């Protein structure tokens, strides 16, 4: 019985094989259905079919003749270089969508960069105004010694800037460079900023805007507390896909709300760990993209950048319904401001919201922060809008 079983198994198997052939099969199509005509684009390009169609530009503008547009960078949603005049060096001009701050704060930040004393409210009110993205905006025109982010001092520099305040964010355009070059381009700069529009195809309605309202801001006051300027038919509307003012969260019980900055939605201190902070920032626009910002944080702790292909190997969280990368790095930390932290631990999440980026960052001494990982993750996952 047992000796014959294997042979019978083979016989049985051979008998079953022809009946179960599921190999590839061409020939006549057997299934036909009648359906309603589909809603498809019969003229779609390959780029549109496969999702490589470039999105509409964020901004609409008239580009001055000798300006050259270059790739956006972190905090530079529009980026240009302007060739130098004579022996003078090139100038740069860039536009940024910023979260928070107000006109006076940002203008005085520029004055600080030019080694000048800050303006008072009265001095700010005395500045000339131009129309920028449908807003009356002050025109800043200052000369001095420019202190770059790297600490290098550049003498005889000139800065032109405008700042437009919206309810949920600010928009600035700034030109900085050698005095001769910027002087030659002053009129072109003014024409450029007056031609700027935020592309309605990329931005939804303004936060708080009532349906049918002719007021582009829906009656909301801007960050300076002023009534909005109206009378522009082409008033540009803009919003982040998440309104920072509507973000909610569940903070860990032992965290306390700290003193933040105009750029942050919220800042938390960890009382048991002086020097540790967690904060949330939302920047409208591309803000350089997820990878660039993760690499910026890596550079802050002295690490080499990673590539797009490395992102899959990093932990992922679900934040505001989006798949977001969790960065955990350590090293000597030096941020954009504040003291250096030797042996720091940095947690960071960059959440791509479509038309803005949300950053959640926590940094502090490694000895204290190693216990905060689960709290940081829970906080990120609790964010809601």
């Amino acid at each position: 019985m047992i000796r014959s079983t294997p042979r019978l198994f083979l016989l049985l198997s051979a008998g079953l094989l022809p009946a179960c052939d599921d190999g590839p099969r061409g020939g006549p199509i057997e299934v036909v259905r009648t359906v309603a005509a589909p809603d498809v684009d019969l003229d779609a390009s390959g780029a549109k079919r496969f999702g490589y169609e470039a999105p509409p530009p964020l901004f609409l503008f008239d580009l001055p003749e000798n300006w050259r547009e270059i790739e956006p960078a972190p905090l530079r949603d529009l980026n240009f270089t302007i060739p130098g005049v004579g022996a003078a060096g090139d100038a740069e001009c860039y536009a940024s969508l910023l979260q928070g701050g107000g006109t006076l704060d940002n203008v005085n930040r520029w004055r600080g960069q030019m080694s000048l004393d800050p303006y008072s409210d009265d001095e700010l009110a005395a500045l000339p105004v131009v129309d920028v993205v449908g807003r009356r905006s002050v025109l800043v025109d200052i000369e001095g010694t420019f202190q770059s982010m790297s600490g290098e001092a550049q003498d005889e520099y000139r800065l032109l800037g405008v700042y437009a305040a919206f309810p949920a964010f600010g928009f600035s355009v700034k030109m900085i460079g050698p005095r001769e070059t910027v002087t030659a381009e002053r009129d072109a700069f003014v024409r450029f900023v007056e031609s700027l529009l935020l592309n309605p195809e990329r931005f939804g309605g303004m936060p708080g805007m009532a349906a049918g309202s002719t007021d582009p801001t829906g009656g909301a006051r801007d960050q300076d507390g002023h009534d909005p300027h109206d009378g522009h038919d082409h008033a540009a509307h803009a919003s982040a896909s998440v309104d920072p003012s509507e973000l909610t969260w569940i903070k860990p019980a032992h965290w306390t709300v700290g003193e933040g900055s105009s750029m942050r939605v919220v800042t938390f201190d960890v009382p048991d760990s002086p020097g540790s902070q967690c904060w949330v920032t939302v920047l409208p626009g591309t803000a350089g993209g997820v990878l660039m910002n993760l690499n910026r944080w890596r550079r802050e702790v002295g690490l080499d950048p990673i590539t797009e292909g490395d992102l899959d190997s990093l932990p992922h969280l679900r934040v505001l319904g989006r798949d977001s990368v969790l960065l955990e790095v350590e090293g000597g930390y030096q941020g954009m401001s504040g003291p250096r932290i030797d042996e720091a631990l940095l947690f960071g999440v960059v959440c791509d919201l479509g038309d803005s980026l949300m950053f959640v960052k926590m940094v502090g001494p490694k000895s204290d922060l190693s216990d905060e990982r689960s709290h940081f993750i829970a906080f990120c996952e609790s964010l809601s809008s």
Partner: protein
Amino acid sequence: MNQAAPTPTIPKSLPRRAYDTLSSFGLTVVILVLMLFITWKGTLAQVDLGLYEAQKKYFESLFIIERAGPIPVFLPGGYLLMGALFVNLALGGMVRLRRTKATIGIFVIHIGIALMLIAGFVKFHHSSEGALRLYVGQQKTEFVSYHDWELVIGAPVTGGQDAQDGEWREYVVPGERFIALGIDDRLSFTHDDLPFRTELHGFTRNAMVRPDSGDGRTSQAVVDGFWIERRPLDSKAERNLAAAYVDVVPTSGSTTVRGLVWGVQKEPLVAEVDGTRYTIDLRKRRFPLDFTMRLDEFQKTDYPGTTKPVDYRSWVTKVEDGVEQQTEISMNEPLRHQGYIFFQSAFDQPDRASNGEMYSIFAVVRNPSDQWPLYSCIIIAAGLLLHFGRKLFRYARTQSAGA
């Protein structure tokens, strides 16, 4: 004294030997041991292969080829083993079993087990499953497979008494006809209504479509500036995105239209043949429903102070032959109708297209043998009661007679 000549042994015929073997208890033991082994192997394989591929390889196959180092080892697959078990059970457990009062319970148990195996067979060959996604207020008459693909050629309906503006005909090639197509092989599909044949080649079960950088470095064919980048299969089968090259070859001899199709393409490939535009789409298989499902309301309840759901449920209206019936579907209370089962599976976050609405996701299963495992268990329980109840009764009677 003469001794009687030994009675000559008549050799058993082949059918008799086959019958003896197929109905033997020894075969039962061999089959069960092998099933235990492939269950263990298949469970471990899920880690790397994922649930879907492991199930296909170990439990839905006739044969499995494993490797002991460089040596291939051939094993029977789950389908073959369960088929053999059914035959063994039928012949040994029912036909050959002496049916007496003592064995009636065992006979009933065997019927129950056989019914369980038949239920599995029916589900394997005649069931379909997928997902139905509905926004509040939206209605649909089909659900979409998780894993299976179909190639669909769309054509406008022209002429004939039943021609209507806005109607299309879909010529559907189920994925089982091309899912195993080799990368270098080609298949051709035709229909009398269509003035061309559709040739499918370079089929890949998981791929990305990339724009050609123009540096000539890609080894794949570039069509209209795009090429297919083959990727390893994802362990989560529903994440695999199939792609293929398509040639639309007119029977009139006019120019062949070449293109790519991809499982997540936003728009179909369009081929103009003899003045008419046809669409070619590679998409997840759609199963038509015999009725319409409309989502009236969706409710999510969160744990206090969090955004994590503790419960979510949907209120739907089923429209069939003009009659509307409202019902509630929640996580442990599916809707069963006409062999379809709608489970409240998940929900998802709003996106821009829905203007902030959430949508409800139902897991849909159509299984003619949906309730048969339940009947099988009832029959097995009845058989156990009969068999052991009889033994208990006889024991009790023996004890009381001896007392």
